[in-house]
């Protein structure tokens, strides 16, 4: 029982409680001070995770099983993959906290729960990435979801916010039920909930359990698909995105998606690898539908947050291609493709956060979240207009920006004869998406500002944050090497284990053959 493995989250959780307590005992504390505290808490959390970089995978065993042998039947595994998501999560929370400082100061009576929940949600994401057991994964996912339900509805006086939260909770509960049902089916077939155990049991089961396994896979896929807002489980996303406080919209589209993919990557690359042919078709279909629906519906949006919601749905479609590729390829393909996926997620997160930093700065001044409202932004605030353009171009995958390099690597790694159609569709969709991004750009650059709107200045803190993130987009786009290296090291543990399992299984089969010639 190595409790030291959780030190980073002790920090995150402890700071969350401290921040909530602070406002409880000092109700007059300035709201933005809480934001800065959260920022530093997130930094401390990230710094603590740095100690785990490069260390050998360590697992936390299932209680009650005693000291089971290292690496088997663990609940939680802290390896480079977990560390990667710890750093990513800490980064997202830090940025979102800074974005929220001015925004929440002007809009909410109390803010401590808001900031506390940001940290707790981050911890939820980490354990989605670290879980090696289905119930742990499920609980982490619910931890994240409950934080998000509250955060989305945090502006209590805002009807849209409350409506969004309610919709999100109802649909979220529904999807959790599906996920649980799927888990129970898999448990019924395999008799275990640990990923390794499932992998071993699935490869040895008889074919009469196929229907249950397929239904189980599909239900799990649906449950997770809901969390990452893959079509057709995306219905909640536009409403939740629109109603949520603006920084939380950014939080939803970065942290919750990254967390969903962290869970899917570990689950599908270990527990479900042996029965890839049973789910890979479903993932391909899901990817295709998500890309098409996201990008096509985005075209007709007039609200900026809804546009971002649909565009992020489209992005999820591209990412799902990688999951399909893992299903179709061997460990080699899986490793390359998931490293590229992690790189893409980082690029996507940085682009989204840059976009939302700029939008928050803009929204704090104007309070307008329609696309039309951006008219003439290039004259009233050229810097924000430039950053918004950069991040949208990054989404569209134009060269020099993160989206191009990461998408190129991702598509290249995922290319195989079975998936050529999906890659082609992905390229086509990037092309479609450029159209609606151009429509936003058009408002900013081609039209005069609305009457009465003068040049305005941006809070220096947000300015620096936005500039830093925009520089990050260009950096990843032009020089993705270092980030990719990190991503590669992060995905290695996933597939090393996969190879181990495969060899064990192969060994087992040989034994079985030796026994029954």
């Amino acid at each position, binding site marked *: 029982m190595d409790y030291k493995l959780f030190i980073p989250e002790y920090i995150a959780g402890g700071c969350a409680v401290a921040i909530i307590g602070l406002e409880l005992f000092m109700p007059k504390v300035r709201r933005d001070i809480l934001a800065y505290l959260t920022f530093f808490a997130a930094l401390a959390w990230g710094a603590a995770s740095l100690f785990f970089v490069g260390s050998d995978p360590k697992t936390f065993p299932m209680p009650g099983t005693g000291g089971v042998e290292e690496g088997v039947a663990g609940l939680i595994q802290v390896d480079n993959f977990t560390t990667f998501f710890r750093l990513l999560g800490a980064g997202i929370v830090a940025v979102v906290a800074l974005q929220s400082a001015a925004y929440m100061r002007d809009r909410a009576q109390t803010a401590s729960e808001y900031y506390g929940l940001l940290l707790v949600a981050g911890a939820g994401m980490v354990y989605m990435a670290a879980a090696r057991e289905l119930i742990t994964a499920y609980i982490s996912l619910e931890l994240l979801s409950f934080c998000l339900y509250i955060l989305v509805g945090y502006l209590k006086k805002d009807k849209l916010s409350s409506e969004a939260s309610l919709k999100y909770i109802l649909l979220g509960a529904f999807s959790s039920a599906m996920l649980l049902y799927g888990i129970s089916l898999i448990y019924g077939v395999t008799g275990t909930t640990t990923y390794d155990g499932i992998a071993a049991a699935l490869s040895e089961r008889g074919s009469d359990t196929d229907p249950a396994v397929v239904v189980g896979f599909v239900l799990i896929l649906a449950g997770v698909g809901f969390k990452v807002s893959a079509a057709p489980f995306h219905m909640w996303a536009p409403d939740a995105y629109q109603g949520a406080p603006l920084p939380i919209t950014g939080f939803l589209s970065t942290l919750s998606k990254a967390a969903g993919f962290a869970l899917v990557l570990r689950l599908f690359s270990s527990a479900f690898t042996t029965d890839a042919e049973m789910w890979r078709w479903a993932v391909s279909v899901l990817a295709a539908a998500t890309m098409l629906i996201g990008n096509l519906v985005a075209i007709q949006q007039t609200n900026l947050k809804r546009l971002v919601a649909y565009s992020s749905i489209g992005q999820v479609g591209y990412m799902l291609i990688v999951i399909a590729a893992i299903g179709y390829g061997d460990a080699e393909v899986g490793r390359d493709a998931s490293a590229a996926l992690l790189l893409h997620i980082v690029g996507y997160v940085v682009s989204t956060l840059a976009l939302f930093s700029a939008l928050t700065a803009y929204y704090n001044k104007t309070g307008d979240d329609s696309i039309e409202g951006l008219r003439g932004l290039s004259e009233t605030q050229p810097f924000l207009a430039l950053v918004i353009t950069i991040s949208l*171009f990054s989404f569209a995958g*134009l060269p*020099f920006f993160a989206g191009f390099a990461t998408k190129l*690597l991702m598509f290249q790694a995922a290319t195989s004869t079975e998936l050529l159609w999906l890659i082609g569709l992905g390229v086509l969709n990037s*092309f479609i998406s450029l159209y609606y991004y151009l429509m936003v750009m058009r408002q900013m650059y081609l039209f005069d500002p609305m009457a009465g709107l003068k040049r305005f200045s941006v809070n220096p803190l947000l300015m620096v944050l936005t500039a830093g993130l925009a520089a990050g987009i260009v950096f990843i786009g032009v020089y*993705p090497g270092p980030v990719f290296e990190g991503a590669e090291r992060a995905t290695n543990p996933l597939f090393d284990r996969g190879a181990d399992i495969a060899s064990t299984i192969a060994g087992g089969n040989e034994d079985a053959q030796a026994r029954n010639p």
Partner: protein
Amino acid sequence: MELTILLLIPTVAAVVAGLLPQRREQDAKWVALLASVAALALSIWLFLDFETGKEGYQFVQREDWVDIGAFNLQYAVGVDGISMPLVVLTTALTVAAVLVSFSVTMRPRLYYAMLMLLSVSVLGVFIALDFMLFFLFWELELFPMFLLIAIWGSGRREYSATKFVLYTIAGSAFMLVGILVLAFSANTFDIEQLGQAEFRDTVIPLGWVFFLLFVGFAVKLPIVPVHTWLPDAHGDAPTAVSVMLAGVLLKMGGYGLIRMCVTMLPEQADDYSVWMVAIGAGSVLYGAFVTLRQTDLKRLIAYSSVSHMGLVLLGIGAMGKTALMGATYQMLAHGVITGLLFVCVGLMYERTHTRDIARLGGLARQMPIIATGLVFAGFGSLGLPALAGFVAEITVFLGAFQRYEWAVLMAIWGAVLSAGYILWTMQRVVFGPVRHEWDGLSDQKHWWEHTVVAGLVAAVILLGVYPALMMDYIGPALDPIIERVES
């Protein structure tokens, strides 16, 4: 190193111009002028320093850039005899574009920043020696072009800008697939190595790869039937952008065809040679016919560009050394001639505020200097001996005649028609009865207007009477390509 500096000069100028304080915003033009003149000077120095007759690339610089999985990209730049003249053309026309923009007063910081960025991207395309770097510069050019046309253009400027972007992106999506297939097959992105590689085990047949690349470049060139963005973009773009667009951006297509399609896939190029020649000759004729019925002066020049770029494709398709030399020379000649045409038309438009040919007339009386420039450019365009266009046309025809008599005969009719539309246009716009509507309009009088017109006229004459100046560069650079084609 020299070439990197050449790229950096306009880049820095773009940043400086973009960040000028508001009260000094009109100074952006001086920043742009200074940078573009510096870049021109540097490129001329490189041009003189270039050793003609030596094979391969010169002024090469290579740095490792990205090394991920199957991608090993370099920051690699260098020039050979084909790209060197194009680089000089680009820097020269950038100076011209900056000078004709001196009357732009609307949002000058963004304007000049974009103009400089445009120059960077075109230069990058011509000097990149890494296929992915080439592609990045190829795409970079969209952003400034979109804004330049959409903000400072006229007429249906937004429509035209969007159309331009969508056409180019669609073409480059094809191209990117082709690039990736070739690069992964040869396991390198280096253009020099790709130009010597034998491709085996490609994911899709090499014929398709050729087609993919061809489409990407053909859209830019442009050739019939993917040319329809050009008249719109030209018609609605501000003068400086038309100069850059016709002068150098179209050449990116021709350059790509020679450097990538023909050099890397000579066998496929040979297989499709007859198609390229047919499309080229078709473009010449079709462009010429459509030009005849244009009523808008800028659209007229735009369609004449389609016709002249058809000649480039004809020369490339014929694959002989003479034909390729002609095609390359045609790119240079068309660059300066059409640049001059657009400058003159732009100057006229600034004064008369119309480009409608029917409303113009007798302008030789009111603005004799601009009219002279226009007539010069027109004669160059129709291929009058001793001017640039003649040398190019005759070389293409000579080079292509042996192999594709019929195509040359078709294209010669295009040249005849060009005499028709140019002379007819001159007669309607410059000569004929004087229109008193335009009395009192000034001729060109600012120093920058004089400089541009005089400089470009000199270039048209120089390229016409002393073709060896460029041919000495182009010829030797084509030898390895021809060798590869023949083997």
